[in-house]
């Protein structure tokens, strides 16, 4: 018989490794998120006592699923006896008692859970917290800290989303093949939002932010395991390649270091190798999309030993493919910046001014920073200063503001000389 310490350690381990999988299965069996969460906790609670007495079962996951299911049936029976309108409960019970556990479906359950949490019929601002709560087991406090929102706000969004799933009849299933591309987009968007929240925003605690990146990468890996679509590979590659630069990107005290100024010896070569391999794999399918193309661009940067060695022609080409299939002003801006590197500042500036004159990106700080930088390179100090000032008025993040202020000081020094 294992000692109580050993049993507790085993239960903690199973909870860490398996609790989301067990929850995913219980949601399918019970047809309700809250009921499943209750059942999950009861199952683990029961395990503490039973495993002490009877030993740790051969398959802890199966034991916990079946215990959770029985606990839920018990609970429903009790409730059916006391509540006035037991019809819905009776139906749930019948379904539950008839449903034999289908082992082959267990693996799909996690995928069902992801697709349900990212269902486009749920409010956009609820999809991310719901996914982090249910799929990643982050607490509402952790999610609140990461997104700089009160835990009560996060909890409320999750409660509303769960209510909509239940009341509107959002099914717990992996979408059919013809709906898959559209639905997968929504899942990828949620994962990338989680990553970006950790990667780009510079407010909040770094520890929490790094955790968000790690969580997004974990989700990406899980999705690749369950559904190796080219864009899933592409998104995972993009996140790995961006994460490879984390150390080089932060110059301490929350200062951002731009790509061309980064110390490339700080880049994580393990992540780069994995990211590049995934990009290759995704490109080979010929069915790739915008995530793969962005990852391919990140891979070209990753392969350059110095900023001067960057293959800008290839990057411009990749942006052009991206623009043809998925046009957006931000992609256009990035394309213009790459053209400036390939053909010189004048060519890039013409493109950026075209975008700004159209009215797109007029309130987008990076567009004005890019314009300022190209003006500076062309010796147009006044225009550069004016553009940096516009950028300064649009930024809300302290490190960005400090970065622009430093640029302005350099320009002042030049004009005084």
């Amino acid at each position, binding site marked *: 018989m294992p000692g109580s310490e050993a049993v507790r350690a085993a239960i903690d381990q199973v909870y860490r490794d398996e609790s989301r999988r067990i929850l995913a299965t219980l949601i399918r069996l019970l047809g309700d998120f809250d009921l499943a969460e209750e059942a999950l906790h009861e199952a683990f609670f029961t395990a503490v006592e039973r495993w002490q007495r009877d030993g740790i079962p051969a398959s802890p996951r199966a034991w916990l699923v079946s215990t959770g299911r029985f606990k839920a049936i018990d609970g429903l029976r009790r409730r059916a006896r006391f509540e006035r*309108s037991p019809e819905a409960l009776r139906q749930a019970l019948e379904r539950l008692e008839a449903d034999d556990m289908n082992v082959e479906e267990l693996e799909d359950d996690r995928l069902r859970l992801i697709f349900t949490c990212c269902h486009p*019929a749920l409010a956009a601002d609820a999809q991310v917290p719901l996914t982090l709560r249910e799929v990643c087991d982050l607490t509402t406090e952790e999610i609140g800290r990461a997104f700089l929102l009160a835990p009560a706000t996060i909890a409320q969004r999750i409660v509303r989303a769960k209510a909509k799933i239940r*009341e509107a*009849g*959002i*099914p717990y*299933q992996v*979408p059919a093949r013809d*709906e898959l591309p559209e639905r997968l987009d929504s899942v990828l968007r949620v994962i990338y939002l989680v990553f970006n929240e950790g990667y780009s925003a510079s407010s909040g605690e770094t520890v929490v932010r790094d955790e968000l990146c790690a969580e997004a990468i974990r989700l990406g890996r899980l999705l690749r395991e369950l559904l190796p679509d080219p864009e899933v590979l592409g998104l995972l590659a993009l996140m790995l390649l961006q994460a490879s630069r984390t150390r080089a990107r932060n110059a301490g005290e929350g200062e951002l270091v731009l790509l061309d100024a980064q110390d490339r010896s700080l880049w994580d070569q393990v992540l780069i190798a994995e990211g590049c391999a995934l990009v290759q794999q995704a490109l080979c399918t010929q069915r790739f999309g915008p995530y793969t193309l962005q990852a391919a661009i990140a891979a070209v940067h990753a392969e350059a030993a110095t900023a001067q060695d960057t293959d800008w022609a290839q990057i411009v080409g990749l942006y052009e493919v991206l623009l043809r299939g998925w046009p957006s002003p931000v992609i256009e801006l990035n394309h213009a910046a790459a053209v400036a590197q390939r053909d010189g500042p004048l060519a890039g500036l013409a493109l950026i001014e075209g975008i700004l004159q159209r009215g797109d990106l007029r309130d987008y700080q990076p567009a004005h920073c890019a314009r300022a930088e190209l003006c500076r390179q062309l010796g147009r100090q006044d225009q550069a200063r004016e553009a940096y000032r516009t950028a300064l008025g649009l930024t809300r993040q302290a490190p960005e503001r400090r970065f622009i202020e430093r640029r302005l000081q350099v320009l002042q020094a030049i004009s005084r000389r």
Partner: protein
Amino acid sequence: MKYLCLVYCDETLLHGLPESPADAECMAYANAIHDSGRMLAAEALKPVQTATTVRVRGGQTSLTDGPFAETKEQLAGFYLVEARDLNEALNIARGIPAARVGSVEVRPVRELQP
């Protein structure tokens, strides 16, 4: 579950755009849903100028000319369907020809408790 698909559209545009559906297309779609066994009811409505709104307060009935609320898009028709879940209902909704010029709100039907 039963779902009500409410078709909203700016009435001035409903029949006037290049992608506006003709009645024949709308009928063909309604027939297809009917043949799939999921149709409970579907109708197109006359323009909103024909609407009359009824309220009863303290036993007194008041009638007003016009719709319940003045909005940019008006209720132009509805489908009441039986669907396995929201996904199936959304699939029916996306096929409604008027969705190309207006919007379709999909609402689950609440079963009244006797």
